């Protein structure tokens, strides 16, 4: 199985006061569709956006994104 960029954006949103995709999109200056695409592992964000997302949740980038084998890991 090949390695893919996985993320915990959805889980972190819920841990942070059930933040909506729209709210996260607004803080990180992207569209809601982009956040949805990232959560579904359909789009890999740029480093800058990845840092912005991690910064929003106040966690290190490695907590949000990982490079691992397997299918969708969203929580």
């Amino acid at each position, binding site marked *: 199985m090949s390695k893919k960029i996985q993320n915990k954006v959805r889980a972190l949103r819920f841990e942070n006061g059930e933040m909506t995709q729209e709210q996260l999109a607004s803080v990180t200056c992207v*569209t809601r*569709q982009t956040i949805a695409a990232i959560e579904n592992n359909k789009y890999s964000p*740029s480093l800058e956006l990845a840092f912005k997302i991690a910064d929003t949740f106040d966690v290190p980038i490695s907590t949000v994104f990982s490079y691992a084998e397997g299918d969708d890991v969203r929580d």
Partner: protein
Amino acid sequence: MKKQQLSYYEKRSIVSIVVLLSVYSSMFYDAFVYYQLDNPQQGLLNFWGNQFLELFLCLIVVYLVALLAFNLINKKITGETRPKITDERDNSIELTAIHASFYTLALGVFVAMLTGMWVETYSLLFLIILSSFMASGLVADIIRIALYRKSS
């Protein structure tokens, strides 16, 4: 996984495809009528020069009107307005679409030049160039829709 509804950009690309098909159909129809005439008043180069000028003007005007109408209708039906920001995903999709469109146009012009060299008829050369303009526009819109769908 449940697919998202069509986004603003996908709907806009569909409108763009409709505009392209209608404008180019009218251009091809004009060419068809011209070639049906036994003794046309207009010379061949003059006709094609007019056609291309007309094409660019028509495309700009029709596209603007269609986009305006689309924005109004879309807002009325879905309440959705044009997204205020264009983010990195939009830019990356746009870049891929423009890339593909450019290569299609370049290929079309190359084929047209080869035709000009071998067949030595202006008509076929211009028809291929006109077709490659249409194909490049269609390819860009189709790729936009496909990439937005893929990542939705």
